[in-house]
């Protein structure tokens, strides 16, 4: 579905089901250089099991118009405005990588509106290696290669996809190529510059899930300590580390990611 937000058209995937009043809402926020389609194998389940699903294409990504926003803070404000634009008072936020920082910041800025927070493949700070940041500006294909190399576990590099017949790293490369020039660099720069993570984490009050994968080289689970500690005011902090997957865990281990999110979201009536 499309809606207008700040004069630009914003596209939101709803998991194949229309939004319905009275249902809990889960917002799935994609990472750098991606779009809503990275969440396909998690969102459809939520949407058919009693939830309203909103998986937006962030500004300048996928089907959403406008320039890509320059900071995590601006993206967090955009997500909160999206909720308002949809008439959604409260929602669970799920974010991957850059999307996890956006979700974290949004939960800090609108604590009364965020019921649960799931940070998938997250870490703070989220520095971007200078060669990668440079490549996103001057050599996109090289940047895509680096991202694929660091985002997928060794066995995923050679395939054995859980989705029959799909070549996951090629799919990811094409998805990044599909985004407009400059978008990936702006996203990576936003991650690199984001400094408020610990202060914002301290303002989070809702139950929070830190979902990692043990072979993640981009946001390794062992680097989550300071963020987990800073979430001390959250009513509950859970940590789940998935075995055998890397940073691209929604594609590498889609069922395990879904199960972790579903368990965290709590049992809801199906329909």
């Amino acid at each position, binding site marked *: 579905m499309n809606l207008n937000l700040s004069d630009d058209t914003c596209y939101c*995937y709803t998991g*194949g089901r229309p939004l319905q009043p009275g249902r809990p809402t889960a917002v799935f926020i994609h990472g750098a250089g991606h*779009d809503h*389609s990275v969440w*396909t*194998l998690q969102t*459809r*389940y939520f949407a*058919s099991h009693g939830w309203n699903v909103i998986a937006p294409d962030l500004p300048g990504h*996928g089907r959403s118009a406008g320039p890509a926003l320059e900071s995590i803070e601006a993206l967090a404000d955009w997500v909160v405005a999206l909720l308002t634009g949809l008439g959604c008072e409260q929602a669970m936020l799920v974010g991957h990588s850059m999307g996890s920082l956006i979700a974290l910041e949004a939960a800090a800025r609108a604590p009364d509106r965020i019921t649960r927070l799931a940070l998938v493949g997250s870490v703070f700070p989220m520095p971007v290696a200078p060669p990668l940041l440079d490549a996103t500006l001057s050599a996109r*294909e090289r940047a*895509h*290669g680096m991202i*694929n*190399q660091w985002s997928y576990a060794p*066995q995923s*590099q*050679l*395939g*054995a*996809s*859980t*989705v*029959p*017949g*799909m*070549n996951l*790293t*090629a*799919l990811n*490369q*094409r*998805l990044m*190529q*599909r985004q407009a020039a400059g978008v990936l660099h702006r996203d990576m720069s936003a991650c690199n510059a984001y400094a408020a993570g610990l202060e914002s984490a301290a303002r989070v009050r809702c139950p929070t899930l830190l979902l990692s994968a043990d072979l993640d080289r981009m946001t390794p689970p062992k680097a989550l300590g300071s963020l987990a500690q800073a979430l001390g005011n959250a009513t509950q902090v859970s940590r789940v580390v998935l075995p055998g997957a890397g940073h691209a865990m929604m594609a590498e281990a*889609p*069922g395990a990611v*879904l199960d972790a999110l579903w368990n965290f979201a709590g049992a809801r009536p*199906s329909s």
Partner: protein
Amino acid sequence: MPIQRNAGADTLALHAGQTPDPLHHSRATPIHFTTSYVFESSDHAAALFNQERAGHVYSRISNPTNAVLEERIAALDGGVGAIACASGQAALMLAITTLMGSGGHIVASRSLYGGSHNLLAYTLPRFGIETTFVPPRDKDAWRAAIRPETRLLFGEAIGNPGLEVLDVPGIAEIAHEAHVPLLVDATLLTPALQCPLDLGADLVMHSATKFLGGHGVAVGGLLVDGGGFDWEAAGGRFPTLTEPYEGFHSMDFAEESPIAAFLLRARREGLRDFGACLSPMNAFQILQGIETLGLRMERHVANARALVSHLAQHPLVEAVSWPELDSHPDQALAARLLPKGCGGVFSFSLKGGRKAGCAFIEALRLVSHLANVGDAKSLAIHPASTTHFRMSPEALLAAGIGEGTIRLSVGLENATDLIADLDRGLQAAHKATA
């Protein structure tokens, strides 16, 4: 932009798509001889049917052994995914029916495998899909044949049997100007010699029966999607991919995945409804073949070069068609697009026409007379009386086939033995026409 490979081609040919099975630690790809898969619960079943979870439901739609083959060819060809089919013909049909229905139009090279020509020229018009055939080298003809209802351009990477080298980058450019994809049949080359997706094609199909399997034991087809074609930017030409499909949860496949929309529809509709799935046994045998693809194609090419060199100088041979020869019109294009070689299939014409051709074929001992290519063993056929027998004399001529044309699929035997066998046939042809 080509897909970056995560390993070299020979490594991918052995490993892509498979890790040792975690239950029994089998190193080789297990053959999953099962029609169906046990659901963990009602909820799990519903989630699989609704594409909320990944996995297998029924082997007509997907099978773990086939999935290894699909991933492996996608990795080799530089695609985002692939679908294994019952045959190369099934792969071609799957591509066409995923992109269009009645009223659709195809522009195709007129130098096609006879089976493909039959499908496009005679069978599909019954279902409202028309094809305009064009000389593969004539770019103006490709461009001029495109209509508002054109949904696909189609050619063979190396034509059959004239060995016209398809200018993949040039034809892809024409296709993309018209907002339609280019499908290339790369059967005779395999990814060991050319990856058309890297050159600008959008879809690739293989008759895996041929060099991919390589041993003449299993029929199969593969359809690979490069994932680079933007279906949503094609001005509504592809409603099968960009509009809700009532037959599968009202899914808008391009919304679900802008990159994998084609493969989603092809599997969820094409395999499901038309049912031309591959047996897992055949998938296993084709996988075994692919493991040695690089090595075999090197030998096929080396042997072909040796035989071409011998025949090109033989006084009883009228002409040899081989893109590496200076006499071939595509010699320069082949040097650019096929630096590793032009494959293991070539054709030549005997002096003496049909009578000489028959005598030649019947005198061969090592080279088998049959309707196939791409076996480890050398094969020969007389196209005018077999693979292309439905074509009119005019169409035959237009496709570069004479009455005395022999097509050879060069195998992996010792080249000296093959040359001796060809000489035996040439002597017989000489006697028959003397």
